[in-house]
């Protein structure tokens, strides 16, 4: 079971770094743009990138996104570090086709890369709290948004709880055990973990009801800055169309 623990901790530590990426990525002008505008902008950029196989159009969106990131102060290096694994994977997947149709392989990979840059520009500059507020202002059902926010806040805590259960079991283990044993015992540990999560959910619900569920709503008005970013998005779309 130590293998399970070791691999999990290794992967989780890199995964959890993402949680506060917007905090430690270099402060950029994009951080100050309203999350609602950024969310819509991300969707528009991605739709522009993935609704065409015209290489020029895809490149146009990619170059524009890189230009926006560079000039607003986002680290291009961090973006590249975060998008390359999946971009490379996508290229490898379509590699066999590239023999007969190289343009397709390049365009396909660039579409994926462009979408990844667009998402990273959102993720690196926006806290999840802001995204939830933005979703709320778009009238996404309250239950869903609250659950998103709770799930996000409790993810690290629940992971610690799961790890402590596994560590406790590992410390009591005397035999090495086969893969099947690890799966079975691990399954039991995860069972205990889910029971605890139900109990925690109940407590949190009671606490929320006792205090009254206060909701944060967006009161912020759009600033000049937001209109400038909206103009950039609109210009990108316009240039994409007239190309």
């Amino acid at each position, binding site marked *: 079971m130590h293998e399970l623990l070791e691999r999990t901790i*290794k992967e989780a530590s890199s995964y959890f770094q993402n949680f506060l990426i917007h905090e430690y990525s270099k402060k950029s002008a994009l951080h100050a743009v309203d999350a609602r505008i950024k969310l819509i902008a991300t969707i528009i950029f991605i739709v522009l990138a993935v609704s065409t196989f015209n290489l020029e159009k895809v490149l146009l969106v990619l170059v524009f996104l890189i230009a926006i990131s560079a000039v607003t102060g986002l680290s291009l290096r961090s973006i590249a570090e*975060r998008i390359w694994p999946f971009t490379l994977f996508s290229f490898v997947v379509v590699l066999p086709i590239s023999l007969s149709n190289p343009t397709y392989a390049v365009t396909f990979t660039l579409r994926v890369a462009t*979408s990844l840059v667009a998402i990273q520009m959102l993720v690196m500059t926006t806290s999840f709290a802001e995204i939830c507020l933005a979703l709320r202002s778009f009238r996404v059902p309250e239950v869903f948004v609250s659950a998103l926010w709770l799930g996000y806040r409790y993810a690290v805590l629940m992971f610690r709880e799961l790890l402590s259960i596994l560590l406790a079991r590992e410390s009591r283990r005397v035999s090495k055990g086969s893969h099947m044993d690890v799966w079975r015992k691990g399954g039991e540990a995860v069972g205990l*973990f889910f029971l605890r999560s139900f109990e925690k959910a109940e407590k949190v619900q009671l606490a929320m009801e006792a205090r009254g569920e206060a909701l944060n709503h967006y009161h912020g008005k759009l600033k000049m800055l937001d209109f400038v970013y909206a103009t950039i998005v609109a210009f990108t779309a316009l240039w994409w169309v007239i190309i």
Partner: protein
Amino acid sequence: MHIPDGYLDLSVAGLFYILSIAVLGYSIYRLREQKLTSLFGIVAAAIFAAQMLNWPIPGGTSAHFVGGALAGILLGPYAGTLAMAVVLTIQCLVFADGGITALGANIWNMAIVDVFVGYYIYKALERFNRSIAAFVAGWLGITLAAIFAGIEIGISSSFGYGLGVTVPVMGVWHAILGIVEGVITAGVVSYIAAARPDVFEQKAAPGKLALGVIAAMIVVSPLFAYAAELVGYAEPLENAAEKIGLEENPIYEGLLPDYTLPGLDPYVGTLIAGIVGTVIVLGLGVILSRYARTT
């Protein structure tokens, strides 16, 4: 199994958004009177944590647990589907795991197909043997979810491979990895059945008609996807422009019509137009940065 942006045609992605929103909306409607917000949130966090477990498998690699079928069995299909949708949305918007345009399809595969199929199978087999029922539910749930992902990608003309490649690759691979999913689902279910049998008793039987409709939606969704693809993908925005006659009679020719300059080699023209566009975006970006400093 998270489909990223760029793999699906927009028509297919849009269709699965509609289907997923319909099922999620109905699930919220069904559970409206129960105060379950924290259950979705906390259990979603728990599933999220459990998905991090890196189960070693023979041969030195490892497999992840998805947990859709388990969520359906433990929480019932409606609450399970919402908890899984919460997990997938967080993964998309925080970790960029799975694309934004593909979120509808990802929710359909992992939060609806996996959860509902897992639930149906478990309910059908439970009376024979609880552990085996949970194993089959976990295994088949994840395998079918992968097959659905294969269908969605395979039908999309954006992806260079057809159904003949994507479905077997996704299906066979996940049918093997799914064994881990099945064993863990069975382990969790038998542990909870022994420790807290009341967890299973609390699940009130949900409406049969609605369950039937959702099952039918799952079965016919690949046909819908095929139809959506037939309706025409290619380049939706350009198609739309063509339909309303913008292509023939552009409203505005632009400074650099068709991205070229008259009298210039088209490639050079395109390059110049691209540079001009980039310079304009850079200029707007500088203005944005200046405003950001003043606020």
